């Protein structure tokens, strides 16, 4: 369970009533994101990093590059690993310990957006095919949970990857020798995730924590370039009709473009 924090029934009713009237608790429109703040290259020790504040939700992503052996079924590609931690300081409901199902889901959905959109040029990250590959570790670190961790994490991951530099190297006797200088990580696509929640049969973009607690269900849609869907995940214990799904996907496509501009610029 994401949180066992119980929203007072009075507030639940308030949220529901407002939404039926097209408004939300924080006075946003149904399809508005909360204010977004983005910082990049904040952790010098990491090869790439970014921090996204989406309203009060605060997520930091660090990218580390290591050297590893490639997977046997794709011996000429680099290795991408995405991990997420819901550290206890981010919420009274997070406990220390190995990742629970929410952390696992978060990591895997962010991973899917990056992997399926083929955002990272993994074929360029295997200096010695079959023996030595670059491992790209994307670690999502949630600092404050106020709802919609997926969108914030995906955005921070993209921003971090865009600023990631891989150390220069040369191959000697099938070993990697580090040379001075850096090269930008090869990025081919810029995946962006948009999450909508279903409340009182209406769809709202970027649910806050309170909205997540009263929602029926949520749908996350990730888009790559040219408006192609690259990942999708339904969450929550409720359901969607097919009409709601298609409506959500169309809204998400437009919002994804807005978000991408914030990270990529222009």
């Amino acid at each position: 369970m994401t949180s066992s924090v119980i929203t007072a029934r009075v507030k639940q009713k308030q949220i529901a009533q407002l939404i039926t009237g097209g408004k939300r608790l924080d006075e946003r429109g149904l399809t508005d994101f909360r204010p977004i703040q983005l910082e990049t290259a904040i952790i010098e020790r990491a090869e790439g990093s970014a921090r996204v504040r989406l309203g009060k939700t605060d997520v930091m992503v660090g990218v580390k590059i290591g050297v590893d052996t490639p997977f046997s079924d794709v011996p000429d590609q680099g290795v991408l690993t995405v991990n997420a931690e819901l550290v206890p300081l981010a919420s009274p409901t997070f406990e220390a310990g190995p990742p629970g199902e929410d952390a696992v889901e978060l990591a895997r959905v962010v991973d899917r957006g990056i992997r399926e959109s083929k955002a990272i040029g993994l074929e360029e990250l295997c200096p010695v095919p079959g023996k030595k590959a670059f491992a790209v570790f994307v670690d999502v670190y949630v600092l404050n949970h106020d709802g919609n961790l997926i969108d914030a994490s995906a955005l921070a991951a993209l921003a971090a990857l865009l600023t990631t530099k891989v150390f220069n190297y040369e191959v000697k006797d099938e070993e990697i020798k580090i040379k001075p200088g850096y090269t930008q990580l090869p990025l081919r696509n810029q995946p962006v995730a948009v999450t909508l929640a279903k409340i009182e049969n209406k769809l709202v973009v970027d649910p806050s924590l309170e909205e997540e607690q009263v929602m029926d269900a949520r749908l996350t849609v990730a888009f790559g370039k040219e408006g192609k869907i690259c990942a999708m995940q339904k969450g929550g214990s409720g359901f969607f009709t097919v009409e709601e799904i298609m409506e959500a996907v169309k809204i998400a496509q437009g919002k994804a473009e807005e978000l991408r501009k914030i990270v990529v610029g222009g």
Partner: protein
Amino acid sequence: MKVPKKMPERLISEEGVRLDGRRPDELRPVKIEVGVLGNADGSAYIEQGKNKVLAAVYGPREVHPRHLALPDRALLRCRYHMAPFSVDERKSPAPSRRETELSMVTRKALEPAVFVEYYPRVSIDLFMEVLQAAGGTRGVSITAASLALADAGIPMRDLVAACAAGKVEGRIVLDLNDREDQEGEADVPLALMPNTNAVTLLQMDGQMTIEEFEQAVNLALQGCKQLHALQREALKSKYVAVKEEVGEE
């Protein structure tokens, strides 16, 4: 055993015939049995293509550990697990991140169907074991799990049927097998409560335009409805057999 590199052959012919002989909108052959285990309160076994999945329910029963009990409803717990021998390269029995995520999404797919509010302070424990995996196991698991719940006599709003559609070599196809899943362009698993057309599981990975996605969703819905008809038959079959035995109708 290494997974062989991508074969140069096509997955779908010009005429639309897939490697296993199916047309784009065909499900794999399905075999369903309900009530197969002696101890579990409810159970079901499904073979779909080469997939073999066993689902079982214990409950409603006392929650262990007690502090997890919910005051106003039953706690539905699901465990999706793959047997070490279910895949080509032996899989470690320890739960992987994929199994953790699938345990969660299958639970979210079934929860809307169960009347959990009828039974406060108890747990309904659902176990899905993949004995042999061949693509689309989460769909087969959900279809089997919903039968296990019905077999256990747990009141439900509807059965839940699930399958996946996707994009393979540019075509939208139904019920991807393992090669189509691995080598195709996109995969859309979907679960449906058929009587109310409520989608309770929806995921996607790969790359598709919105139009292609809509086509895949519609194809998956058709597949779910076909599975639902088979589910209903399977639930009724043991009672129908007894009726025939005693010479009724």
